[in-house]
């Protein structure tokens, strides 16, 4: 059964992928990209990667799509037909693809329990997490503790993106007393927005703090949180959203989340441990791990949410007023 769904999803992905490349309308391509992302999120669920699925859905289908739409609004939604069909890219792609397919020939088969990935390193995570970290979600334990440093790096990446977008597009404040004219008429959106906004925030909080036990964690929560505000901004106008969370506050929160994460690492060094060694944060290693994970997940959540929101603000504020 799983295999059937898997296959169907893959075929759908292929169809979507080809359509995206062929599509001349960028708007349509964006929508298809969103679908592509959702399809892969579904595939991730089938493949037992629930955390990844959640993230992909929130980031790929959510934020990325919004950014693409914002960009299209600022640029154009028509792709000019290419004057020529370049041969070189085709050859490069075919060679790359052939190299990869050649590479697959000696791969362990899909789902094979004897594959090296299932025999080395990973089993230790599954085996030791309950004892060493004390939380059931192994993805969270690896993410936040065993490979917590990668996550710090990841946070730095998203921080870089935030700083970068801010640098590139700058930020323009606007009056914001008016709702965006296009949306003011859409009563349904406003009602739904009002209805959903608190629910989304609540869900974000749940994802944030339930990440130890089920799928979720700082990244997903941050993205969901940001999505809630983006919805708010869409329904009630950018100005109102900015009154709720001003740009300056975002800037501080972006930095704060990062500093919180690094602070945990430095604190553990000051307490005599290694960088990001949560064991020393409390008397008992396991509660130390708990504390550390909660704190850094919080840092991640804060920074991700504020970066996402900031990027959105920046893109939107680039739009000429009344031209939404």
């Amino acid at each position, binding site marked *: 059964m799983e295999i059937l769904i898997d296959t169907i999803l893959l075929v759908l*992905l*292929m169809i979507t*992928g080809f359509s*995206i*490349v062929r599509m001349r309308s*960028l708007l349509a*391509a964006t929508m298809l990209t969103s679908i*592509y*992302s959702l399809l*892969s999120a579904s*595939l991730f669920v089938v*493949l*037992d*990667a629930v*955390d*990844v699925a959640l*993230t*992909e859905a929130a*980031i*790929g289908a959510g*934020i*990325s799509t919004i*950014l*693409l739409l914002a*960009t299209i609004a*600022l640029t*154009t939604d028509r792709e*000019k037909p*290419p*004057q020529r069909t370049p041969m070189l*890219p*085709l050859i490069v*792609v*075919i060679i790359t*693809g052939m190299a*990869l*397919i050649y590479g*697959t*020939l000696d791969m*362990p088969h*899909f*789902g*094979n*329990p004897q594959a090296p*990935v299932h025999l080395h390193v*990973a089993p230790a995570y599954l085996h030791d997490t*309950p004892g060493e970290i004390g939380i059931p979600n*192994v*993805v969270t334990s*690896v993410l936040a503790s065993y490979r917590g440093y990668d996550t710090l790096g*990841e946070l730095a*990446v998203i921080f870089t*993106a935030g700083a*970068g977008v801010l640098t*590139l*597009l700058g930020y323009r404040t606007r009056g914001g007393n008016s709702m965006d004219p296009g949306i003011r008429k859409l009563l349904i959106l406003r009602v739904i927005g009002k209805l959903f906004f608190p629910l989304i925030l609540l869900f974000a909080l749940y994802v944030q703090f339930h990440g130890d*036990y*089920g*799928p979720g964690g700082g990244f997903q929560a941050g993205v969901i949180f940001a999505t809630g505000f983006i919805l708010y901004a869409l329904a009630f106008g950018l100005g109102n959203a900015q009154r709720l969370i001003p740009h300056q506050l975002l800037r501080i929160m972006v930095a704060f989340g990062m500093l919180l994460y690094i602070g945990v690492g430095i604190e553990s060094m000051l307490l005599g441990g290694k960088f990001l060694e949560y064991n020393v944060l409390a008397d008992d290693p396991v509660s130390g791990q708990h504390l550390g994970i909660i704190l850094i997940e919080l840092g991640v959540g804060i920074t991700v949410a504020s970066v996402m929101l900031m*990027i959105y603000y920046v893109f939107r504020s680039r739009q000429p007023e009344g031209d939404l």
Partner: protein
Amino acid sequence: MSGLLGLYNYWIVIILMMTGFYAVIARPNLIKQIIGLFIFQTSVFILFISMANIEGGTAPIIKEGIRLYSNPLPHVLILTAIVVSLATTALGLALVVRIKEAYGTINEDNIHVQDEED
């Protein structure tokens, strides 16, 4: 599954990857390139998640009575990679916006023509 059938999953993923890759390097439209990049990267994620899969396994959240879990490590890696991909997309799109403002076009061929004139 036996023989080459056990690899079909990877092959489709490779085709997906190459679809995205092609869009990046063959399309002159900058937004299309970013979309291509996105597809390319997302497909790589599927490759990673596929390898984490284990027959008869379940999501790596420890529960009583379950012995076989899929591999959590690739999941973690891909969580990171998704965020990286988003960061790249955001930056790329910001650049596209600026390029549009500076050149009035987001078609690579037209941009080159303008650069030549400079």
